[in-house]
């Protein structure tokens, strides 16, 4: 334990007066105070990267929208979580995820257990206003136990982060930019030929969609088990 004094900030989130430590993010303080901010790329136990733009909030006095998961609280901050502008930004960002790949929920292995699907429902996305791109995406079935279906990937990088930060293998990474970006294993070799992959399957369990799954699952059968993550990150903290 270090004994440096912890600075406490008082701020207002969604009209609630909240207190938090200066090293906490807006998202953490909001959650401690029971204020819901939607997230997608975030997963407790992994680092935060602010990639999905679901947690964008307004901070009084700033022109830019700030991702709550990577913005630290400050004394006197006034944060707005819900208004029409933010709702519109979140809906559009989510719609773009749907239009960029081929998310056919009805035949997906995670149908009914999918973070993307549920967030769409929660945010009232009942159709996609922009045209679907329908890209021809590969499915990597080279691994004996797991499947990577790029049609369902939203590039949240949870797999990249859990592999690097928790398993320590760094098998996963991102290749390419924009709509051409793709998660890859071992410098874009087939997953089954990866030398760094330990076969632990953590990437499969943290994946929010049906992009990574266990083989042999039919539509709606892939349930993700994530209970290991808080435990492992707690052990990591203890070991520091």
């Amino acid at each position, binding site marked *: 334990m270090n004994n440096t004094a912890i600075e406490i900030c008082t701020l207002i989130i969604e009209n609630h007066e909240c207190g938090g430590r200066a090293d906490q993010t807006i998202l953490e303080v909001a959650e401690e105070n029971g204020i819901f901010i939607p997230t997608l790329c975030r997963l407790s136990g992994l680092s935060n990267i602010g990639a999905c733009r679901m947690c964008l909030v307004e901070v009084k006095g700033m022109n830019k929208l700030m991702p709550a998961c990577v913005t630290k609280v400050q004394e006197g901050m006034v944060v707005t979580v819900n208004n029409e502008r933010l709702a519109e930004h979140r809906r559009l960002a989510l719609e773009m995820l749907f239009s960029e790949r081929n998310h056919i*929920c009805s035949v997906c292995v995670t149908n009914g257990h999918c973070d993307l699907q549920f967030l769409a429902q929660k945010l009232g996305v009942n159709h996609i206003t922009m045209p679907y791109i329908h890209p021809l995406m590969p499915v990597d079935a080279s691994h004996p136990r797991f499947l990577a279906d790029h049609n369902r990937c939203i590039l949240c990088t949870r797999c990249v982060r859990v592999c690097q930060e928790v398993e320590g293998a760094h098998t996963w990474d991102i290749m390419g930019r924009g709509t051409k970006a793709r998660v890859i294993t071992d410098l874009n070799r087939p997953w089954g030929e990866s030398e760094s992959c330990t076969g632990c399957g953590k990437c499969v369990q943290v994946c929010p969609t049906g992009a990574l799954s266990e083989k042999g699952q039919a539509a709606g059968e892939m349930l993700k088990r994530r209970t290991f993550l808080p435990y492992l990150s707690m052990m990591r903290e203890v070991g520091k």
Partner: protein
Amino acid sequence: MTKVKPTKARVATVWLDGCSGCHMSLLDMDEKLILLGEKIELVYSPLVDAKDFPENVDVALVEGSISSEEDLHKIKLIRRNTKVLVALGDCSVTGNIPSMRTVFPLAKVMERVYDENATINKQVPTKVVPRLLERVMPLHEVVKVDVYLPGCPPSADNIFFAVSELLEGRVPEMTSTARFGA
């Protein structure tokens, strides 16, 4: 004393490029169909005999995506003749399974189906059947959609709720009950 017969709402259901599962779900309302039957007149549907889509339709429930020239022609006619157009189910809302072919060029799809996988009479049909579009679309890419009812299929309860609300002149609020793939 003669009872004044209240005018019933003119409702149509349409089956474009879908599996008819949404219509099965519609029938799955069981006894609620009788309740609905008291309020609506089914003027056009795969379930009734009308051959042409009529005029002055109050509510049209459209299942299926826009995949062929015929679908394209039909949906424009439906829009012209309908007050409230409901996209019924994932195919009409998102393109769903029919849209999975869009990632491949149409010529390749035809070749695969009518040549590679055909055992007899290998030939791509050019007569009688409508020409397929290169790109499978949800309804709202072609016409204005008034109500979106996602689901594969939408539950019977959701369909009943949506139609009941529309008959009462309200816009059905279904964010908590309807989602893609459900």
